[in-house]
């Protein structure tokens, strides 16, 4: 697609008429807010919705293991449902992200790619630990309970804490820290409640992030 009009070509410009300061302030606020909204790869409403979906998914996992004696782990049907939910959420997120960054080029897009790779690699950490635990004969409570519920929160959360801290992205930093803390708590509450604690901490982190970015967006746009 050729989207390159020649900047040397002549045209008549519409200056938009005289601007009084109040109108200018309003226009500046509106334009800034709208531009930030359009460039935002994680819109607060979608993020909050994702938080609710995560809470429901972890809630379903928790309900599927509730009352198990001995603990055997979540049932296959619930695990499949969670995978489908994760896949749909990931697809929607990628679509929204692509729309937000369409036409944008420069250092931030390259940095985002690197960050995405770091997070993807860290996601692999938990199944690796799970596999090793199984190999060494750890119980089902550990292999199919505590580790899959708590380890992703700690490993991925710590990665995000590092990335967010290096960019002074405080909403992400706070959200990731809350998730890491939740992961630590989940390690000590047993294999059943670990799912519930993990779901609640992810929900708090994600919804807290959505609220913080909404507040930040409003504060920055003010003239």
């Amino acid at each position, binding site marked *: 697609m050729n989207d390159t009009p020649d*900047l040397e070509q002549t045209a008549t410009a519409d200056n938009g008429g005289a601007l009084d300061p109040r109108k200018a302030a309003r226009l500046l606020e509106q334009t800034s807010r709208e531009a930030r909204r359009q460039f935002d790869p994680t819109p607060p409403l979608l993020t909050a919705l994702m938080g609710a979906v995560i809470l429901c998914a972890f809630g379903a996992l928790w309900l599927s293991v509730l009352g198990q004696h001995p603990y055997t782990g979540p049932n296959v049907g619930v695990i499949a449902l969670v995978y489908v939910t994760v896949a749909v959420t990931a697809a929607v997120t990628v679509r929204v992200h692509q729309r937000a960054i369409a036409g944008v*080029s420069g250092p931030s897009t390259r940095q985002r790619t690197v960050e995405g790779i770091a997070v993807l690699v860290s996601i692999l950490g938990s199944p690796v630990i799970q596999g090793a635990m199984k190999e060494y004969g750890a119980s089902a409570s550990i292999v199919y309970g505590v580790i899959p519920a708590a380890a992703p929160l700690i490993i991925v959360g710590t990665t995000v804490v590092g990335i967010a801290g290096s960019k002074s992205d405080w909403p992400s930093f706070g959200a990731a820290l809350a998730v890491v803390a939740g992961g630590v708590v989940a390690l000590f509450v047993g294999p059943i409640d670990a799912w519930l604690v993990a779901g609640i901490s992810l929900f708090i982190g994600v919804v807290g992030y959505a609220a913080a970015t909404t507040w930040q967006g409003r504060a920055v746009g003010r003239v």
Partner: protein
Amino acid sequence: MTEEALDPLIHASARLRIVATLAALPEGDALSFTRLQDMLELTPGNLITHLRKLEDAGYLTSEKTGNGTAARTSIGLTGRGRAALTAYTAALRGLLGGL
């Protein structure tokens, strides 16, 4: 403070919207001409004229990559442009505070 304190290059609705939109990007990033045009809903000729004025003042940079059907123009706000918008916003604030 009077309205003369407002940078005349930015104090025009189309150019104010261009600069404010580009300032919403992280520093150093650029936006394709097509996306900018879509966002601002300006005609190509109108947008080009305003971009030239801002580029002549050193507020913007434009970079053309590729050629033929793959050609693409990216527009980014320079440090000078970002500083000018900050100064404009401060002047606007001062002016409105005094009204």
